[in-house]
């Protein structure tokens, strides 16, 4: 832009220079001695002649020289723009997650990181010109860049876990504060494999890991495993990982009315994962604690609020059918098993298994119509047998929220219906003793529906890690404090050109052209026979 401005200015000045009307030299007459006294002219000589000097060879040569010079400047400016800035603009990315408080020879890792950062600032202010410093702290997420005007501020730790992804995001964060030429990352994470040496903007990335390896066992999760119709007991599982340890420490599990110390066992599903299990004692607050001290305390205490009732408890209202022995009686949120015509609207707000009188008799002349693929409900059925002894469809409208799973043909009347939330099924009432195949068909459909609604599984209740000074978000991410400390990187600030150079091949050629034009212009002006006071300027 400056080159263009200078070029326009120079061109204007050149045109003005050539449009000058130079005053003619005084006229010398050989007979001037004999001239009478002349009259002084009233007309002043004009300074400029408004005629463009397009016929002047000298003008075009000078203009060409000017253009070549400006183009040379422009090319070198474009090159310089691609070269590293003359000074160093430093971005500090400091990990302020909870694990940066882990002690290393009695000093927290964050302090080590601050030392490295301060040393880097001193180094950057030395031989290089430190033009700008900006700071990004990273815990669960990176903060916005802040320009540092004085010394490095205290960077308090945040009770949050951090991942490498957050650090990488901070490295690449676009900013209006500085255009960083160097990015210094200070964290207890090792550099991820394949980390690029430079950012997309060309800034040099220096990853400095701080903190020596410290062995640690960290609680990762607390899950509730429910068995369903199997009759097994629900259990609470506490997962923990070991870093730098070979044996898992005992875990103290406290819940509603109990406190058990459990020795975890190695999990077969994942290497390094250990699991401690206790019987589930109903809804309430459960806390798991690793009592033996280790490297990082933030992940040693995990609290979960379990609000899930005991799976397997039902409110059985079918008087003609005995409740299965593995099921316990329940109320409240327990599954309601009842006839469709005997439930209240309040019952419909709970998980329900409802029956209607589909047998005996059955739907004569009807066939299985459209049905949805519902393996949990239909997987055990032989549809040919079902079609041969098809039950009567439901004669009343389906309750709100229920949709047909299978209908009759013709008539499109529902035989089976399902509701997603809260879970609910409507099936024909079981007919034990009705004879084959109705006995078998009705029993299979009913028990399939009951097993589906009582299906067990793994539930992860909301949980919180409790550090020494309060809750720590995602402390499980910080458990690995036993990572090997990588060698300290070479922190060097130079302003050598980087790979963004765009090439400066045109500069010498343009400069040569400019000089050639100047030479030609001089030769043209001073050529014998052309040398006059006017054009040899």
């Amino acid at each position, binding site marked *: 832009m400056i080159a263009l401005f200078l070029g326009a200015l120079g061109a204007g000045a050149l045109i003005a220079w050539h449009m000058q009307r130079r*005053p*003619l*030299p*005084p*006229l*010398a*007459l*050989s*007979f*001037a*001695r*004999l*001239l*009478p006294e*002349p*009259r*002084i*002219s009233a*007309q002043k*000589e004009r300074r400029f002649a408004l005629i463009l000097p397009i016929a002047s060879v000298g003008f075009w040569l000078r203009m060409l020289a000017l253009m070549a010079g400006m183009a040379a400047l422009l090319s070198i400016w474009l090159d310089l723009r691609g070269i590293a800035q003359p000074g160093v603009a430093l971005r500090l990315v400091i990990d302020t997650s909870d694990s940066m408080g882990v002690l290393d020879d009695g000093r927290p890792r964050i302090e080590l990181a601050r030392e490295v950062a301060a040393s880097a600032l001193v180094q950057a202010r030395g031989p290089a010109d430190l033009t700008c410093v900006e700071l990004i702290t990273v815990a669960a997420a990176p903060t916005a860049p802040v320009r540092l005007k004085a010394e490095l501020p205290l960077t308090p730790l945040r009770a949050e876990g951090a991942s490498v992804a957050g650090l990488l995001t901070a490295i690449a964060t676009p900013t209006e504060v500085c255009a960083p030429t160097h990015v210094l990352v200070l964290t207890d994470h090792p550099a991820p494999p394949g980390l690029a040496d430079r950012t997309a903007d060309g800034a040099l990335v220096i990853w400095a890991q701080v903190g020596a390896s410290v062995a640690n066992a960290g609680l990762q999760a607390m899950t509730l495993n429910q068995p369903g119709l199997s009759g097994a007991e629900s259990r609470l599982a506490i997962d923990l990982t070991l870093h730098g340890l070979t044996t898992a420490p005992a875990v103290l599990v406290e819940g509603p009315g109990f406190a058990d110390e459990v020795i975890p066992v190695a999990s077969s599903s994942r290497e390094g994962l250990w699991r401690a299990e206790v019987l589930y004692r109903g809804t309430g607050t459960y806390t798991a604690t690793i009592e033996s001290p280790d490297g990082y305390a933030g992940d040693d205490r995990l609290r979960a609020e379990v609000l899930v009732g005991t799976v397997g408890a039902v409110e059985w209202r079918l008087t003609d059918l005995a409740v299965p022995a593995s099921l316990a009686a329940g109320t409240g949120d327990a599954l309601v098993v009842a006839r469709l015509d005997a439930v209240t609207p309040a019952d419909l707000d709970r998980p329900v298994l409802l029956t209607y009188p589909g047998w005996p008799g059955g739907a004569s002349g009807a066939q299985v119509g459209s049905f949805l693929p519902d393996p949990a409900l239909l997987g055990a059925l032989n549809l040919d047998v079902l079609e041969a002894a098809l039950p009567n469809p439901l004669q009343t409208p389906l309750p709100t929220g229920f949709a047909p799973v299978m209908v009759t043909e013709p008539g499109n009347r529902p035989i089976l219906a399902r509701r997603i939330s809260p879970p609910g099924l409507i099936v024909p009432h079981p007919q034990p003793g009705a004879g084959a195949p109705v006995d078998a068909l009705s029993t299979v459909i009913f028990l399939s529906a009951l097993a589906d609604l009582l299906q067990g599984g793994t539930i992860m209740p909301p949980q919180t890690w409790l550090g020494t000074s309060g809750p720590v978000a995602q402390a499980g991410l910080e458990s690995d404090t036993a990572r090997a400390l990588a060698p300290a990187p070479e922190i060097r600030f130079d302003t050598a050109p980087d790979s963004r150079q765009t090439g400066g091949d045109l500069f010498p050629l343009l400069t040569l052209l400019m000089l050639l034009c100047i030479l030609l212009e001089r030769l043209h002006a001073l050529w*014998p*026979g052309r040398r006059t006071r006017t054009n040899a300027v």
Partner: protein
Amino acid sequence: MKGAFPDLPLSDRELDRLQFGLRRSVPSEGLGSHLRRKQGQSLEFREHRSYQYGDDIRMVDWRASQRMGRDGPQIIKTFEAEERLAVAIVLDLRPAFRLPVDAPKLLFALWTALALCELVGREKDDLILGTVFGPEDDKPLLWRKGRALREMRKVAERIWSMPEASLEGVPRARTGALCRKLRPASVVVVLSDMLFDDPDGEVGALLRAAQLRRRELLLVDIDSIPAEIADATAASQSRRLATVEGRPFGADPVELDTPLFDGAMAAIDALRATRHREWSQGGMTWHAPVRWPDRTAPAKAGFDAEQAAEAFRRIFPTLPVLRNLLSRGALG
């Protein structure tokens, strides 16, 4: 016009043709202000006349005297005197004589001097070259028996390359040495524009002396005034005038109008008339001025050496001074 001194535009062949043409058209005897020939000791018979007191007795023609009778006068036989003619060329070296810039009058004068030297030298006559308004140490040069042919060119180059004196100063004439060099019965050719100031009459005295003792004065008046006026008015109607020979014009542009130049021409005519009266001693021939540079239209781009040479080739053969010299036998 700068640079090296341009060669004489006339070749030897052109000078031969010119000399031949002049001999055919101009009678070699009986013209001119003075008779060159006089009684002498050559073998060329002049006349018989009566013996007078003082005549050499050895010159008596006894046979012719006997035919006059016993009481008749003694008759003596006289012969023509053989005398080498001296041609003096006088150059005006005023700074203003180097004007106009593109075709200096000095160039025409030097070329004319060179051509005359070539013609005079062929007859083995002596040549004297002198200057007026020249440098203080400039002395007249004398070449005998046509030896000026080789030297004149160097002198012309030296004069041409002399550092230009300021136009503003009043030139001073130095003629004493030249006056002493003038020989009797010589021809003095003055190449000038005759516009110089002569407050102490030095130049006038020289020119008057050039007409005494059977000398003949030929004035070649080189007139560049019309060309200078045409060039000046073609370039601009108003312009600053340079101080020339002590005449200042101030720093303001002046009107280059007709009254200005008419006034100058009137003053010049008056000056010529006055000088004709003052200088004429009976042996002066002042021909009409020679127009230099001779061009039909003002040349804005200047008058280059080639154009000047062409103009000289056209003008020189028509110079009346050639006929005057031929009549004195200077050109053969």
